[in-house]
């Protein structure tokens, strides 16, 4: 990756935890999607969130992003309370959803300009950094094309760059590499590492166990609860497994919930 992309957060990460959860719970009627989870994420950390489909990881992430109100428990994101300081949180986070979420009928630069604009990035900054970002992504030749015409891998890289454009302190990635080929996935993780290197906290959900190995620490969710939280190396040691795949299988096979 081109080191020129300047992805430094606008202000140095707060001294405390980037994300702090205590007994965070989400109920839909009788169904407990997220069951009293507690954890904290350090600034600049790549924090992996693993779980089978329906384990509750997306729901947990949505509560932290302000897309969903918790039923009970406490949580702060970038030092702001998820109940009362939604607007403050929104200023400091980036978000990339499971679905591809740029506009297919806009060009890459128009997408960058739009999202930069609604996050309140100054025009001058957008004019400078927008084209630079296009160059660093290697999209110069596709600049006049609409995003809909790009291959999925490029779209996902662009979506990540857009999520980082306003220089958030924490970025939430919801299964960002779903359906992407292995080479592009590798490049994508290079971008994540680079961002983390500038002090941005990365909160990422994934299905891929090789990706789990790239994270500093991971949690494994089963049926709405956190079953394990540690570094990949410690987890392998604790469960006496050679790789994360086995660790995950040992924990997740007890799950009673499948696709939600």
């Amino acid at each position, binding site marked *: 990756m081109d080191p020129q992309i300047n992805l430094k957060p606008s202000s140095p990460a707060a001294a405390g935890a980037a994300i702090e959860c205590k007994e965070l719970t989400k109920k839909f009627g009788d169904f407990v999607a997220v069951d009293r989870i507690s954890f904290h994420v350090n600034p600049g950390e790549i924090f992996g969130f693993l779980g089978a489909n329906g384990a509750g990881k997306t729901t947990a992430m949505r509560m932290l992003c302000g897309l969903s109100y918790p039923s009970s428990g406490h949580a702060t994101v970038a030092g702001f309370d998820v109940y009362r300081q939604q607007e403050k949180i929104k200023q400091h986070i980036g978000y990339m959803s499971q679905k*591809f979420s740029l506009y297919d009928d*806009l060009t890459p630069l*128009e997408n960058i300009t739009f999202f930069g604009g609604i996050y309140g990035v100054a025009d001058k900054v957008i004019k400078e950094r927008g084209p630079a970002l296009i160059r660093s992504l290697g999209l110069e030749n596709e600049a006049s094309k*609409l995003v809909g015409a790009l291959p999925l891998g490029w779209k996902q890289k662009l979506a990540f760059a857009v999520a980082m454009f306003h220089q958030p302190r924490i970025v939430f990635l919801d299964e960002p590499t779903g359906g992407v080929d292995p080479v592009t996935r590798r490049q994508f993780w290079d971008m994540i590492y680079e961002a983390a290197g500038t002090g941005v906290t990365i909160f990422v959900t994934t299905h891929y166990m090789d990706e789990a190995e790239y994270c500093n620490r991971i949690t494994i969710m089963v049926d709405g609860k956190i079953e394990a939280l540690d570094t990949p190396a410690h987890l392998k040691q604790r469960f006496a497994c050679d790789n994360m795949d086995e660790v995950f299988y040992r924990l997740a096979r007890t799950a009673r919930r499948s696709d939600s």
Partner: protein
Amino acid sequence: MKQLFVFIRKEFYHVFRDRRTLLILFGLPLVQILLFGYALTSEVKNADLVIMNGSVDPLAQQLTAKLRSAAFFNVQEKQLSPTAIEKEFKKGNIKAALVFPSGFSSDFIKARHATLQVLTDGSEPNISKTIAQYISAIVQDFQREHQAMAPAPLTITPELRMLYNEEGNGSINYVPGVLALILMIVCTALTSVAVVREKETGTMEVLLVSPFKPVMVLVAKAVPFLVLSLANFSIILLLAVYVLNVPVAGSLLLLFLITLLFIITSLSFGLLISNATSSQQVALLISMMGLMLPTIIFTGFIFPLENMPLIFQWISNLIPAKWYYAAVKAVMLKGLGIAYVWKEMLMLCIMTTLLLTITVKRFKIRLA
């Protein structure tokens, strides 16, 4: 404010890059105006009329000449047998036939009473009625001219005038109706689809995570269609005045104001629909079927409201287009001022406020 501007600019990109949207936006008004103006007209022009005159009869010839000079008919003089006439009617070659009996002049002058037979194609009741009316009017006129020769009998002649539309221009009725229909479709369907599309593609989620005020999403979605609808209104008005010869009798400013109000009502409707659905197809279906049909039926521009059962007349009051149609007709055709249309405008205001309140209250700031 700058954020809103950025958002609105993006909405314009969406509109101008989508061929379907553009087609609905600018193709529909053109087609509808021309369709209603020309194809679906109830006027009778150049109707084929066969006149049968058995003998050389001066009065019959004078009357024939008079009918010939009227623009309504395409007169042919032929001698046809009754079966031949029926054949022509069946083939649709003629719309009407007029048969002079032999001795028409002498009957009229000597016996003081003459008859002639008018046959029309009753399978098209409206046209046939109109033709019969035209012929009767011309015959009566002819009769009056000749009465000068005789001592005046006691007569009452109703002098008919169609106020606000002396020439019986059918387009006059349709233009306000088409305006209502187009604005309703464009504002409601396109706006609801534009919002729902963001939900469908998942971009709404990203917008809700951003610091952009969720309610402003609705504003940003509505603004382009407001601007484009006003442009549309101007195009329809120009077509109406210069192509269909429909006059604008009243204040252009007032007309513009009423239209603006109606556009906002329709936009609110569209936003409400977009709240209730999460697929573009459903949104389009509700807008088209749920609003277009009631608009056509209950506005009164095709089917007179006065002829409907009371319950339907009552329902029609809930249709915004009904009030708009009434106000536009009053201003455009009768040249009335605000004193005569404030009631309609107030109704639109109330509906808009109601719709917007529900919409904003129901708009989901959070997805769950």
